């Protein structure tokens, strides 16, 4: 039995663009997919784990997020710690453009990081609140499959919901 302390165990992750990230096991275990893998294969050799769907740009953000939130959790729960975590999340969301936000969601979804996914999804919801239909289509890259008549008919069912919508200024 190894006498090495668990805290110093490292796990290597390899991104789609062939960068390798070495992280503490505790951080890697924040990724639901990684945790499940090691729970089911406790003896798996600690070779670099390939993450073909994720680029280094986004994995580094994810690793930072998990590191920070783990540190917040370790500290005793108090309103200042909660505020600290909230402030971190708000700063992160603010720093992301729409494209990065979506990429991070895909990555967090793939890695099954529940808290981060919840926070990112809320970030998108906050960005599309009170926005127009056209804005939402552009945001998600969705093609309009209604004919003009069909769309007018659907709109007429709830015409009042189109009042007071934020103007599209981008």
């Amino acid at each position, binding site marked *: 039995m190894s006498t090495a302390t668990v805290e110093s165990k490292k796990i290597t992750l390899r991104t789609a663009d062939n960068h390798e990230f070495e992280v503490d096991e505790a951080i890697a275990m924040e990724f639901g997919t990684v945790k499940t893998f090691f729970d089911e294969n406790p003896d798996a050799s600690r070779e670099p784990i390939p993450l073909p769907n994720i680029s280094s740009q986004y994995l580094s953000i994810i690793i930072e997020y998990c590191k920070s939130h783990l540190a917040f959790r370790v500290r005793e729960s108090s309103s200042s710690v909660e505020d600290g975590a909230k402030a971190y999340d708000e700063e992160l969301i603010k720093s992301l453009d729409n494209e990065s936000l979506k990429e991070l*969601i*895909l990555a967090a979804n793939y890695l099954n990081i529940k808290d981060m996914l919840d926070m990112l*999804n809320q970030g*998108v919801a906050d960005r*599309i609140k009170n926005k127009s239909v056209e804005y*939402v289509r552009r945001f998600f*890259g*969705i093609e309009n*499959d209604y004919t003009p008549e069909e769309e007018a008919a659907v709109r007429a069912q709830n015409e009042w*919901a189109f009042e007071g919508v934020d103007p599209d200024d981008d």
Partner: protein
Amino acid sequence: MASLSHDIIPDILCRLCVEDLLRFRCVSKPWCSLIDGPDFIKLHLSRSLKTNTNLSLILRYGHLFSINFDSLKTVQKLKHPLDGNDEGVGTEILGSCNGLLALFNGEEKIALWNPSTRKSQMLPVTEPEFPRRYCFSQFIVYGLGYDPISDDYKLVRMVQFYGKDNDSFESEVMVYSLKTNSWRRIKDFPFYLKYKRGYGILAKNALHWVVSKKPESDTKSFVVAFDLGTEEYRVVELPDGLDEEFHMNVKALGGYLCMVANYWEVHVVDIWMMKEYGVKESWTKLLTVKEPEVISDFEFVLPLAYSKNGDKVLLNQDDYKFVWYDLKSKRVKNVRIRGAPESFEAEMFVGSLVPLNGNGAMINKKKQDDQKKQRKNNKKRLWKGLNVACAQDIGSLELFFFLAIGSLEIGKEM
């Protein structure tokens, strides 16, 4: 461009308000199917309830008003399907469940209304069976709830009237089902309703009322539940060791059943919560409001809702103002709302996409027209006179007065 997969979209959309979602039905046909689908509607509703979002306060003072629960700043007058009601009674709210309100115009019009989607449905009219022998005082209470077994919304109507003596009573219970858009009589309610007004309180898919065994000989209050799934009645056990001299009320808070004990002689109100439904030992005293330490001068307080992070409870004080009760500091803070009526009844309400049938208005129209003709007789006038009287929260002396008026009306017709 990154494309969010179809399983991620619902988790984003379920965080939006109903107005945004109704507009986004126009984004694409798949989005429209998603938003209209029963799974998404349930997801959106359960998330709102779990996170205390999409909540509003509905106030009733003749008209109906709503206040956004997150801001609690200003009041908005609501346009509802029973508007244009000229009766002095105003529109009553018979119940609130999952975003649906049951409205009553004081006569015979009842509507189910979703204020968030602005859709409504008139219910078919069903008259109570009039008792053969002549009797005074008929009381009608309602309750609105959701039956998870049949995935149906039900409106319960209980009519009670005194029997051949002051200590006996009879009741008639009808249940309306939204799915079938029809009323059905079920077995009688074997308890005596203590409050002639006030709808059934919804908790754990059951409606609750304060009752006693008899009107006169056995008046000890207790709580009875009507299970919306099984349509059975059962007694809810109350905490042990309660003093006798208090006014009992039931309310729901955060989905939990609460018992409000108003010790009016000493100006103290205890609010108990049943933390585990049906388990007597789980009754916990949630908070106590004492005059003058907590509130300097009050008659009653009723719980409405938890704050978003659960550290405070919004209380309705005297149907006149709202206060936040801080569970830790045990102190209250006033809530100032611009434009609130000087007196009101208050109800919590969640914004949801829960749909109505939409065809209820058309069904049974001929039946309703025939019934309208039938109602031009003494029977109907007597019922109306008594019904209006009983709809008010009045003491027995005033009830007697109204009954006298009722009999004067009969005298006129004969």
